[in-house]
């Protein structure tokens, strides 16, 4: 009498092992995507700006002229920063007083 072939059912331990492997594979895939997404994001190289600082933009943007069409005096110069005027700190304004008298020998 021959035994009918029967499918061997996996053991509970083997099933748990398979589940763990599958979960690890999914986790790796998700992690890689997050990493890839992070890699793809642009790097912010700008210095942080104060929140309160007001950015002044010109109301009208002038069309850029080609340097060759500009006169010598109109051409942009390199390394020229706008000067910042710092007011002198004085608690009270000082004025040169008018003399009560002046020195003269034997007037």
């Amino acid at each position: 009498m021959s035994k009918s072939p029967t499918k061997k059912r996996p053991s509970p331990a083997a099933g748990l092992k398979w589940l763990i492997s599958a979960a690890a594979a999914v986790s790796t895939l998700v992690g890689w995507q997050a990493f890839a997404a992070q890699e793809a994001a642009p790097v912010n190289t700008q210095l942080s700006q104060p929140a309160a600082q007001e950015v002044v933009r010109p109301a009208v943007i002038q069309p850029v002229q080609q340097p060759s069409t500009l006169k010598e005096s109109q051409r942009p110069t390199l390394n020229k920063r706008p000067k910042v005027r710092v007011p002198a700190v004085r608690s009270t304004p000082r004025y040169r007083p008018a003399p009560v008298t002046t020195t003269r020998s034997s007037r």
Partner: protein
Amino acid sequence: MKSLEFRAMNCQMLAAVDTAHARADEWLAEVPSWFANWEQHLSRFRIDSELSQLNRSRGRAFPVSSVLWDVVQAALRASAASGGLVTPTLLTAMESAGYDRSFSSLQLSGQPSGASIYLKTKTPMAVKDWRAIECNAQTRSIRLPFGMQLDLGGIAKGWAAQQAVQKLSQHGPALVDAGGDIAISGPRADGTAWPIGVTAPDGHEVEMLMLSGGGVATSGRDYRRWKQGGHWQHHILDPRTAQPAQTDILTITIVAPTTCEAEMAAKVVLILGSEEGLQWLEAHPSFAGLLILEEGQILRSRRFKSYVWS
């Protein structure tokens, strides 16, 4: 602030008191009479002054008023402090050099107007030693050696400025300018310093002093000069030569604790000249000075900047 200008001791005077009191003008109006009184004691140009009487005392002990006594003592202190470079015994030498009348009287008598006058030539006389003057505090008398005569000049003006400012200060902070000898009683009513302009001989302002007390004196050979024997002479005599001082300094302004001290120091530096005079100033910490030289160069002692407006 109230002020009054007037003439006394052949100079332009200014008295100022820093108060808004209704009687301020009344108080200032008294000041010219104080100077008139002191001039009657101290002038060498008035034959009836107390000083002229002392000069005629011919070697006798001469009892003097408290005014003449005080000024002679101030003059002798100046002589001692200056090592004899400032001395009241220059009168004979001064007259020999040609300065034998007041400039104002010479102008009135028809001499050329202005500060420069032509006078006759005389032979220079030796200067008498100030240490030969005998003073007796008990009898308040002074004995001049025979032939010695006193000229209290700048010291008398400095002393008068100090006296006037002291008397005025009972009414408020005060300043008195006696022909360039300036006395200050203390800070102004609001606690600030008194602004005093330092002017060059041409009249332009060189510096602004801010002073809360003490004295200022200016001495120079740009004013009160005369021509003798074809050469310009001036009224600052060097007692070592009995001749007008040979100096590269045109004018000098000194800041000092008192007006008499400022007057003495100004004469010393003028006589010594700029190089030696500045060394003398730096060696005396209570003085500060500004020198204007013949060519217009301006020199300041190290301590002078602490009195300058900035």
